[in-house]
């Protein structure tokens, strides 16, 4: 009798584990800068949140086998899901990049934010701060072609 129960429990456990293995939402992913490519094996959606408890989640549906998402720099929690199972929680971190470009032609110069975050650019001349420019990513502004322009992340 005892053996039968143990065997029954083992069979039950194996069935459950096999079911979870078969229905568990699987995805491959790779990160390239701010873009994450998800390749679905049997998932319908990827759930993202900035909080580990998945409050205010955002969803990325798999319209095709592959889907892409571009995220702002920061730390994110995500899990894949299908109609049967929601997967385990994973973490992803997108690094911020502060980038500055000065494009000089014969007449004037232009400064551009080539990073992925909003930046505060301080202009210094002989070590003295003489002005600020706030630029969103890809924004640019005409500047004087002299002095040192220092870019810092704002938010």
């Amino acid at each position, binding site marked *: 009798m*005892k053996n039968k129960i143990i065997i029954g*429990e083992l069979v039950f*456990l194996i069935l459950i584990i096999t079911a*979870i293995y078969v*229905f*568990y*939402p699987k995805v491959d992913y790779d990160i390239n*800068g701010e*873009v994450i490519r998800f390749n679905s094996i049997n998932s*319908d*959606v990827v*759930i*993202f949140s*900035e*909080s580990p*408890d998945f409050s*205010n989640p*955002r*969803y*990325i*549906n798999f319209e095709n086998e*592959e*889907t892409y*998402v*571009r995220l702002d*720099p920061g730390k994110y929690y995500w899990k894949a*899901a*299908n*109609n*049967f*199972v*929601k*997967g*385990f929680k994973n973490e992803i971190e997108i*690094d*911020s*990049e*502060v*980038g*500055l*470009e*000065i*494009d*000089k*032609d*014969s007449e004037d110069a232009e*400064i551009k934010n*080539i*990073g992925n975050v909003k*930046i505060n650019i301080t202009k210094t001349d002989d070590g003295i701060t003489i002005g600020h420019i706030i630029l969103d990513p*890809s924004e640019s502004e005409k*500047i004087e*072609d*002299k002095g*040192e*322009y*220092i*870019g*810092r*992340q704002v938010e």
Partner: protein
Amino acid sequence: MISRYKNKHSNKYLKFALVLIIGLILPAISSLGISPGRTSIDYDPGMEKDIEITIINNEHKNIEVRLYSTLHDEFGTLTLFEDSLEFFPSEDRKTIKYKIEFPGNQTDLEPGLHIGEIVAVQIPKFAEKDTFIGATVAVVSQLYVYVPCPGKCIEAGLEVLDAETNSTATFIVPVINRGKVGIGDARAIIDIFNLDFEKKATIQTDSLSIEPGARAELSAKWDVNLNAGNYLAKITVIYDGESTSFEKEFSVGDKLLSIESIFVNNFQLGEIAKLQILVENRWNQDLDDVFANLIVFNDRDQVMTDIKSSNEDIPALSKKTLIAYWDTVGVEEGEYDGKLLVKYGKKSSDKNLILKISENSLDIFGVGYAIQPKGGRGFDVTTILLVVIILLIVINISWFIFFRRLKGKK
């Protein structure tokens, strides 16, 4: 002999003139990047930590970068292991380390934020430093050190999602507990004003508890019944009887024009592709001179293609297709990042794209969030495992009791 001498010198002058002409015609670009732009850590007396940063040679040039560190106040010791770097054109990025050490016995450190900085400065290469008068670039990787306050204190922000007229916006107030004590109840009241400071609405978020050092998101929904424009949100976060307030400007109905889809028919690599960009004017007025601008970046994040559609007038609340042509001669098969901008007046809408190019297909994927999931209504795997464990425990206890009773009867 004389003619050889002349030739030698005329070649020299020619080279000099060429360099001068190229220097005058071609724009000079200096650029520099650093990642991460910010590293945040919690203060721990006596802690030592190595932190990695990457310096990026965006233009793939031969450049020299000088590095130095600064502390806004004396909260620890910041040691840079290198003070200069040289990049060759083949080098895209270099990773370096710096060390932050906090004294073990410092107890009088002011609670709150303390800032350190690693500054990378591009040294002008083709001129003597003392005589160089042009603009130079420098980028900063910040180190944010948070010293917990003894009682309860918080850091909060505001994010506004889907703020469109006649739709439901979501207000998210992320709150980080920067104190040493847990917060039992945190909630936020958001007052919305127009730019003439007339109050238009008041909304209240849900309430949550927050562990020390943890982050929680307070959220509230708001049915937007205001016209498109800029508004001011005054946020008061109330936590266990204490409160903190801040303001943030946000926009309603920022996207007057939305990019609906992009079609490409009969694509053949090496030929001219016709891109059909469907846009919708959601504004209640006609939009004149609307055009699309597609920018495609190569694997080094440099602009590979920059094409524009013809200008079109789009009547109010209607859709129109903008046509742009892309000459794909010289484009290789592969996957590229792109950005599609639709410009109207001084405003623009944009959509980030991934372009997958093969010999006879161009697949364009928009990248962004979906609002509602199309699937994923399954059970959480942790819940399933928990149920299985509980079930097994119940079964085992049951048959254990059953056998004990059976034994007792015997």
